[in-house]
Every structure is written in structure tokens, then in C-alpha cells.
């Protein structure tokens, strides 16, 4: 690996606070962790970088006992441990501030901080508010916060709630006599920039008496606050970078790898884009989390919408399928104005949607491949009002073959297929009617391995070549750039920029990032 050399400390290195060796975790169809190595030194802030699906969340979950690894070892201060639960991890001094905040909103900060560990604050089942206040204040003092312990949590700002969470996590100090390891998973995603500064000051303060693992999508943040960064890709650690002097581009290159196969996104198969009137034309579309969206997609064109979490791009996509309500604007398909009060209307207009959450929203797990495939376009398998078994069998088998879906049979429950094959069935659902005009793909490759991703990409190219217009919310910037003919950058609910993205003239991820934040 072309890894910048680590500056060797002058004194012999003390035992790492936390070390992970060869951690492996399989999920059906996916290898989430494929032998990850990780070292967290004492009193260091370690950054964890990687694209979606690189294995970050699984690794973090393994570190706090929410996921049991299939193989590999976790060492806490040199001692091999098995972490079976969050309590287990806490007993070893490992605590995590979760991405989705885990505070009970209608309780006070003090109650939240002491939740589940009230100790002396409860006598004979009754709260002793003076003790509780004092104990909570002790925790808040550790991080130098001046939040009133008796304030109700839902009256606090996001940043203050995060401080409460950190104070709460620091309670694990009482369980282990060693400096704790605090994991922060995407702590900045809900914060304003000023609040982020406060958080970073806090993280630097934590370093005095703890080790910190910091995860963020924003590479500049990672470089700013961390001492060292470990990069994950495809469930493996692919490199370590000392942050002093490093630039985001370098990190990013390691995250995406040397995209190896030149034609990973089948760019040469990009379809010719029809020049006449657009297939989909959106003007001034506004909703709860987006305003004044203009969007054109031509037949055969793939338009990617990129943006950070909270940019509103998911909601735009859902609005185009009649899920998210809109307050203003118009939507035209092939020049004809349509209204989308519900998903039925969208289906009838020739719009298809592949949701990001495949297992809960995309497919009905216990139902068969055939039933899942024909769920929307029932007419395709029916004669009159009745299901025609032969017609269904022929239809489904044809599509199984056409999309090379690997399944024991058409009657196999879809949940037994691998992720990639499940996704192909979900895609086929929109194709069997032969009337698909616009496909909305919300993270169509989420959780898929490299081979399955490639097949989905090829399928997207084929559909585009067949004249289907596509709106893509990609898993990563690289994917968006590789697949799209045009990219819309969304920021805070608005279209911030539109970037042409033709084969041979692709923009760089950094060009897009500039507009995203």
C-alpha cells in the first residue's frame, strides 16, 4: 500500500487502547467486514473514513457489542475480549454516541444522563433530585458544559443534546478504571457550522482523558479533528494516514481505490440522449424539505441528484413517486401535466421507484420471486380478472433469464436470494409491464457487493438505451459521476448547481463537493 509513513514516536508505544485484528462479518449475500484491522491508541482521535458500504457501521456496531463478528479478535488494552452487548462494551470502557440521537425527549438532561444507571440518585424507588442533579452535573463538568441538568431535553438545541449524549456516554468511566474509548458516529450531520466548532473543541478536550473514534462523511472534518485516519474499503482497512499535512483528495483516492476496471460504470455503453422534449419535466416543485426544484430528464438520460444528508434529494425523489406531498410546482411527463397524489398514480404514469431500503420497502421478503415481480403490473400475469398461472410462469421465467437472476425457482421466497438478485427482481417489477418511462433509483446498489453492483449498472445502461429516463440517487459521488449524463447538486433543499457529466468530460468529486456544502 502506498501509505504515507507514520512518524515513529520517540518513546516506546504504549499498549493501544483498542485494537481490532482480522474482523469478519457476513450478511446474506454481502461480506460487510472482510478482515478489518484497526488500532486506536491511547489519547488519540482516530478518524474512520470510507464510502457507504465500506463497513464502517458494521465495524462500529461490533465495537459496542451490537454485532457479533464471525471471525477476528478485539483487544482492549492488549487483552482479547468478546463483546456481547452494549453493557459488555461499556464494562470494557467502550461507549458510542449514536448517529440517531438516543435521548428521551420529554425527560430532563439529568434523567437522560443517568438513565439506566441512577445508582444513588434513586432511594427506595424514588428519585432524589438533589443527588441526581449533582451526579449529572459531575458528568457535564467533565466536558465543561454549562447545560442546566434540569432542562427538558426537547428544549435543548441539537448541539446541546449532543453534549448531553457525550456526558451520558462518559458514565462508562465508572465501570472501568481505564481511560474510555468514545465512538462518535456521524456526530456532525445534524449540526450547524458554529456548533461543529464547539463539538470539535469538545473532542480535543476528550482526548485529554480518553481515546476517540470519529466517523464522518465530510473528509475536511476528519482531517481537521483527527490525529490519524484509517480508511476502509470493501470491508477491509486499506490504509492509514497521519492527518498532519494530508489533503482530502488523498483520502478520497484511498476510499474509492484505483477504480481498477476502467469501465466499472459501463461508460462506453452510455445511451444516446434524446434531444427533443424531455421525458420528465419538473418546474418549481416545492415540498416540506425542498423548494423550487427544476429538473428535466430526457428519454435515455441518467440524471443523478447529489447532496449531503438533509439536502432534500430523497424527498424530491419520493415526491416524484407520489409519496412525499408537494405544495407547489408542476410535473410533466412527455409534455403532459400529471398530478401524483399517491403511488398508484405514479405507477399509472409509467414511473417506477426502487427504494433505498430494499429489505423493508423494496420487496416483501416472505413472498415468492414471482409474486414480488408481478406485484405492480398485475395485468401482465392476468387473463381478465384472474391470474393465469401459465402466463405468469412464462413471464417470470423470461425475466429471470433476461436479467440473469440467480434463484432456485420462481416460487422461492425472495428473502432467500442474495442482495443483488433481490434488487434485480425489484427492478424487473417495473419492467415487465413494458410501459416504464421513468425510473427513480434511490441508492440502487446499497449493500451490494462489487459484482452485483456492476450488473445493476449494466442493467441501468440497457434500460437507458431502451429509452427509459432515470433519476439516480447514487451511493457515492463516484457512482453518480460514473453513471450520470448530468448531475444536479442539491444543497439545503434547493438545486445549487447543474453539472454536465458526459462520457469523456466527467467532473471530479471535489468539483461537486464544493457545491454540496
Amino acid at each position, binding site marked *: 500500500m502506498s501509505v504515507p509513513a507514520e512518524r515513529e514516536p520517540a518513546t516506546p508505544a504504549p499498549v493501544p487502547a483498542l485494537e481490532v485484528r482480522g474482523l469478519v462479518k457476513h450478511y446474506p449475500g454481502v461480506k460487510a467486514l472482510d478482515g478489518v484491522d484497526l488500532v486506536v491508541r491511547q489519547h488519540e482521535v482516530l478518524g474512520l473514513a470510507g464510502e457507504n458500504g465500506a463497513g464502517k457501521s458494521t465495524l462500529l456496531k461490533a465495537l459496542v457489542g451490537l454485532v457479533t463478528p464471525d471471525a477476528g479478535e478485539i483487544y482492549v488494552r492488549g487483552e482479547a475480549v468478546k463483546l456481547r452487548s452494549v453493557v459488555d462494551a461499556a464494562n470494557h470502557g467502550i461507549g458510542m454516541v449514536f448517529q440517531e440521537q438516543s435521548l428521551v425527549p420529554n425527560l430532563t438532561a439529568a434523567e437522560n444522563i443517568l438513565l439506566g444507571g441512577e445508582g444513588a440518585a434513586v432511594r427506595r424507588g424514588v428519585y432524589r433530585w438533589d443527588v441526581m442533579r449533582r451526579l449529572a452535573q459531575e458528568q457535564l463538568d467533565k466536558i465543561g458544559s454549562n447545560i442546566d441538568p434540569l432542562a427538558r431535553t426537547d428544549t435543548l438545541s441539537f448541539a446541546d443534546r449532543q453534549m448531553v449524549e457525550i456526558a451520558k456516554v462518559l458514565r462508562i468511566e465508572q465501570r472501568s478504571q481505564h481511560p474510555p474509548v468514545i465512538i462518535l458516529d456521524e456526530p456532525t450531520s445534524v449540526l450547524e457550522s458554529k456548533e461543529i466548532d464547539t463539538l470539535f473543541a469538545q473532542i480535543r478536550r476528550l482526548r485529554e482523558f480518553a481515546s476517540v473514534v470519529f466517523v464522518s462523511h465530510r473528509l475536511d472534518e476528519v482531517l481537521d479533528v483527527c490525529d490519524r485516519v484509517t480508511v476502509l474499503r470493501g470491508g477491509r482497512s486499506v490504509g492509514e494516514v497521519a492527518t498532519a499535512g494530508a489533503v482530502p483528495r488523498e483520502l478520497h483516492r484511498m476510499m474509492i481505490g484505483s477504480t481498477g476496471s476502467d469501465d466499472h460504470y459501463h461508460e462506453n455503453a452510455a445511451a444516446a440522449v434524446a434531444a427533443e422534449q424531455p421525458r420528465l419535466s419538473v418546474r418549481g416543485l416545492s415540498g416540506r424539505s425542498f423548494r423550487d426544484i427544476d429538473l428535466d430528464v430526457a428519454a435515455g438520460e441518467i440524471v443523478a441528484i447529489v447532496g449531503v444528508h438533509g439536502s432534500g434529494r430523497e424527498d424530491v425523489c419520493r415526491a416524484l413517486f407520489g409519496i412525499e406531498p408537494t405544495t407547489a410546482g408542476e410535473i410533466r411527463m412527455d409534455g403532459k401535466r400529471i398530478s401524483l397524489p399517491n403511488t398508484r398514480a405514479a405507477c399509472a404514469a409509467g414511473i417506477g421507484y426502487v427504494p433505498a431500503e430494499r429489505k423493508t420497502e423494496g420487496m*416483501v*421478503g416472505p413472498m415468492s420471486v414471482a409474486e414480488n415481480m408481478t406485484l405492480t403490473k398485475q395485468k401482465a400475469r392476468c387473463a381478465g380478472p384472474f391470474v393465469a398461472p401459465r402466463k405468469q410462469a412464462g413471464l417470470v421465467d423470461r425475466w429471470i433469464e433476461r436479467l440473469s437472476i440467480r434463484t432456485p425457482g420462481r416460487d422461492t421466497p425472495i428473502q432467500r436470494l*442474495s442482495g443483488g438478485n433481490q434488487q434485480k427482481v425489484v427492478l424487473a417489477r417495473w419492467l415487465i409491464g413494458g410501459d416504464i418511462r421513468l425510473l427513480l433509483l434511490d441508492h440502487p446498489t446499497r449493500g451490494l457487493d462489487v459484482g452485483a453492483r456492476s450488473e445493476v449498472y449494466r442493467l441501468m445502461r440497457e434500460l437507458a438505451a431502451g429509452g427509459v429516463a432515470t433519476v439516480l440517487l447514487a451511493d457515492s459521488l463516484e457512482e453518480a459521476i460514473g453513471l450520470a449524463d448530468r448531475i444536479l447538486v442539491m444543497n439545503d433543499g434547493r438545486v445549487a448547481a447543474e453539472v454536465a457529466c458526459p462520457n469523456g468530460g466527467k467532473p471530479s468529486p471535489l468539483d461537486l463537493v464544493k457545491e454540496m456544502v
Partner: protein
Amino acid sequence: MSTPVAMQPVAEPAIGANSPRPARRLTGFMPLIALAALVVALAVADPDFLTLRSLTAVSRTAAPLIVLAAGATLIVLCGGIDLSIAALASLSTVLLALWLPDLGGLATPAVIGVAAAIGAVQGAAHVLLRIPSFIVTLGGMSILSAVALVVSGAGTVRVVDDTPVKWLDLYVAGYVPMSAAMALVVVALIAAILKATPLHSWVSATGYSESAARLAGTPVDLVKIGAFCVSGACAGFAAAMLVSRQYSGGPTMADNLLLPAVAAIVVGGTAITGGHGSLWRSLAGALVVTLLRVGLPIVGVPSAYEQILYGAIIVVAVALTLDWSKVSIIK
């Protein structure tokens, strides 16, 4: 060379992770095993049990329960529950008894129509107001009971001339009660319609995963309202069976059928969380429940213990059939 090698390893890794719990496999046969065991046990306890006369009596008793459970099964398959079926059936007996003198032969279809409409209204309230079906039908149960009391003047309504409903109390070929035969027809008809049309996909998808069904463009709301409508119609038909047998309607006549009906559904192995199950299972479940009911006195248990049995059956059957992977938090 054309060995489908690629087909081999496909599902292997995933099967282990998704295979049903062992208990789940057993539940497929549970209602039939229970049914057979009960028949044997009762035949041993009372040699007279296996006579034609007693079997006829059992099937006649079971008929209204089968019809009620069949309708409610549709709602459970959609992921909801209908607690109002018994109260609606009671109200229907009152209406039928009141309308028979004026409407004659049209009274039965009229009552079934009204019951279906009441079911549809509850379904619409559940769907449009986004209130859990449990709450809607709990409220419905109370309202319908009260309406039945008001309409009947809080007393039994006698049927003087029962000719228009008499046919339901006759026997086919001398031994098979017409009511039992009609109950079978109802189950077979609904099951066949489900199987032969896209409705089966729609109902299952709605029950297994409503959000996935909605995102696939399934008419989830219509399916649910339809299920409530059919359940209401079944309650109306069950009422006609009761009236034909008792020559009267009463504001609480069918009330004691609610727990047995729910028990029949869950004993049949239909998942209370929705999606998995069938009407045939509920038929078997209803027979099991009926056999227990007639069997208790035979083995010497006072019938006062009946309710304890239903309560225990429901809890145990749900414990055995619940799909734990689907419910992360039990409320």
C-alpha cells in the same frame, strides 16, 4: 457442458439466516394435528361422540363461528384485527328479526348488505383517519352493542314466521346441516377468489409489509377497506344462521363468539402480525375451538371454565406462531 453450475450455490448462504424457526414449520400442521388429537380424545372419553348425530350437532354449532372467523381472517392477513365482528353479528340478528316480517326473503340479503357497509365504514375510518384497526373496531364493538340494545329495546326479538330463514336450519342429504355446508361454501368461495386473482398478492403484501406494498403501487387502502367489508358481510351471514336456529334475534346473541373466533384464527396458525396464513387454517381452527367447547362437558369440566381456555389458547397459539423477526418491540 450445460450443467447449471451457477445455479448451485445461489441461495445457500442466505437460507440459514432466513429459514423459519422450527416452531414455524410445525405450526403448518398444528391445526390438523390438534383436530385429530381432539377427535381421538373425545371418542375415547365418550364412545357416543363419533355417532352421526353428535357430529352433525358439532358441525351445526361450528357454522356461525367458521363464517365469523373466515371474514376476520382476511383482516388479520392484511395485518389488522377486527374486534367488532361479534357485536356486529349480534346487531345483525336483531335487525334480521325486526325486518323479517316486512321484508321476508329480502331481509337476509339486506342485513348482510348493511353489515358489509358497517364493516366498510370501520375500514375507511381505519385507513383514512390512520387509526389502528384494533382501536377502531374496539370503539365499533361498543357502539354496535349499544345500537343493538337501543334498536331491540334491550330484549330478545322473537321471529314469528321464520320461513325466509328456515332453509339455513335444514339438513342436506338428511345429515349435513345446511348452515355448515354454507359455511364451507363461504370459506371456499373467499379462498378461491383470493387464490385466482391478484388479491392474494395484494393482501399478503399488505400484511407482510405495508410500506413495501404501497411503494409497489398496491391499492393498500382499498384492499383493507374491502377486507373489512367482507368481514362485515360474514358477520351478517353468521347472524342469519343464528336467527334461523333460535327463532329470534338478541342484542348480545353473538357476543360470546368474539374470543372463539380470534382463537380459531390464531389456532389455525395465521400470523397475528399479518401476511402469513389462510382461510382454510381458520376453518380448522374453528373446528378445534368448537370441539373443545363441546368436549369440556364430556370430560367433566364445567363450562364456566370455557373462557379460561379461550384466553389460554390465544396466548399460547400466538406465542407459537409469532414472527419474532418482524416485531422488534412488543407493545
